[in-house]
């Protein structure tokens, strides 16, 4: 119970900081939008190619946004020795991790739900009305997977000088299963019909990855933030 209260308090702190600074919101919205537009230019004028590329491009944009938001979350805490002071309190490291994860997850989910229609409109993709719940669920589960891994590695690299370069290098290889599950589930949802069953399978796999990563990362987070 104490850990739950502590995790919610840490998540609230991250939300308040972001509401006031808007540093992550501005950076991720701009970066995701630019990624979608640049990739659209790169893919050319073939409408079928554009539509089929939409799920992959969307998740690449969200993956980069996840890197930025997680890094910024720890960067804000490093100022004034506040993270150190937080870790001096008798709170479990798992609670700190879960709090920061919760804030990052909700942020990425909201960003994903905003970017979903933008990406589909830009790439000429459309999803049957009955599959939108699958898309929303994919964004939520995919966002959780990204947040779990990004928060862990952002904590690992927070005190390193080359953290901006190291974070994506360390994080992206680990994130491949989440990326694969999220892209495939999005593709299947776009096709609709019989492929909804396939989307459900990918979502189950995504949920499985999320659970495994969550258990492992929360269990070993103390190695990341303690000396």
């Amino acid at each position, binding site marked *: 119970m104490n850990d739950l209260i502590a995790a919610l308090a840490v998540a609230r702190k991250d939300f308040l900081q972001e509401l006031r600074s808007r540093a992550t919101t501005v950076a991720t919205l701009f970066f995701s939008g630019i990624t979608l537009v640049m990739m659209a230019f790169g893919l050319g004028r073939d409408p079928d190619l554009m539509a089929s590329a939409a799920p992959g491009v969307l998740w690449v944009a969200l993956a980069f946004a996840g890197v930025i938001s997680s890094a910024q979350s720890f960067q804000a805490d490093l100022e004034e020795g506040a993270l150190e002071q937080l870790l001096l309190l008798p709170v479990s490291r798992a609670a700190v991790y879960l709090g920061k994860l919760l804030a990052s997850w909700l942020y990425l989910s909201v960003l994903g739900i905003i970017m979903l229609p933008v990406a589909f409109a830009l790439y000429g993709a459309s999803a049957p009305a009955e599959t939108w719940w699958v898309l929303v669920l994919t964004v939520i589960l995919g966002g959780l997977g990204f947040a779990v891994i990004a928060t862990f590695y952002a904590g690992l690299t927070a005190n390193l000088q080359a953290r901006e370069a190291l974070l994506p290098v360390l994080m992206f290889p680990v994130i491949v299963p989440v990326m694969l599950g999220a892209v495939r589930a999005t593709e299947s949802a776009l096709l609709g019909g019989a492929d909804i069953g396939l989307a459900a399978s990918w979502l189950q796999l995504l949920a499985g990855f999320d659970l495994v990563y969550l258990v492992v990362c929360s269990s070993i987070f103390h190695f990341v933030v303690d*000396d």
Partner: protein
Amino acid sequence: MSSAPPPLAIELRDVTRRMGRDFVLRGMNLEIAPGKLVVLRGANGTGKTTLLRLLATRLRPTSGQAFVFGHELPRAGGAARARLGLLNVTGGSFPMLDARENLELAIKLTPGAGGAAAGALDAALAAVGLTAAANKLVRTYSSGMKKRLGLARLLLLDPELWLLDEPYAALDDAGKSLMDECVSGAKARGRTVFMASHESDRDHLGPDAVLELSAGVLRLYDPLLGSAP
């Protein structure tokens, strides 16, 4: 029938700490009983902050054993953290939260402190002279105000062991007097205070011991003779 003596507030046994290739702390032995006020002196870069961070569980000894109230570090770091508080040089508050939010967060993350009344929080802010600025973001504070907020956190949580890293830095004369009052008050309440400070005119605090850290080694400080072995 005799009962076991209470554990020492701080106990170091042949503790060393290496930062990179250099040994910052060398074979350090120290025993501080509960309720004592001990001042740590030393030139810049001699390892005072390293020692305080080690005692606060943020750094582990490279070799040797360190205990806080009998809890071995870092193995029993969680139990030790429940009984200590560190005031660092910058105050350690979140710049994008206001003073009240910073203190509320500290209460929520401290098991057992959840019942601290809102009155206690207001009293801590009043004690350090931050009532009027309680709802302003910490990033708008001066260095001295940030230090006062860190002090308010210590007063609010009132741990058994106060670790103070340059507590007078950035404070004006009124702030220094306030810090003196708080340190004296903590000692009067039976708290142990271990303070790293360059201030040489705080003798009126009546420290139980003054130590000097030089080249990674602790010595008793004698004002007439300088450092004595």
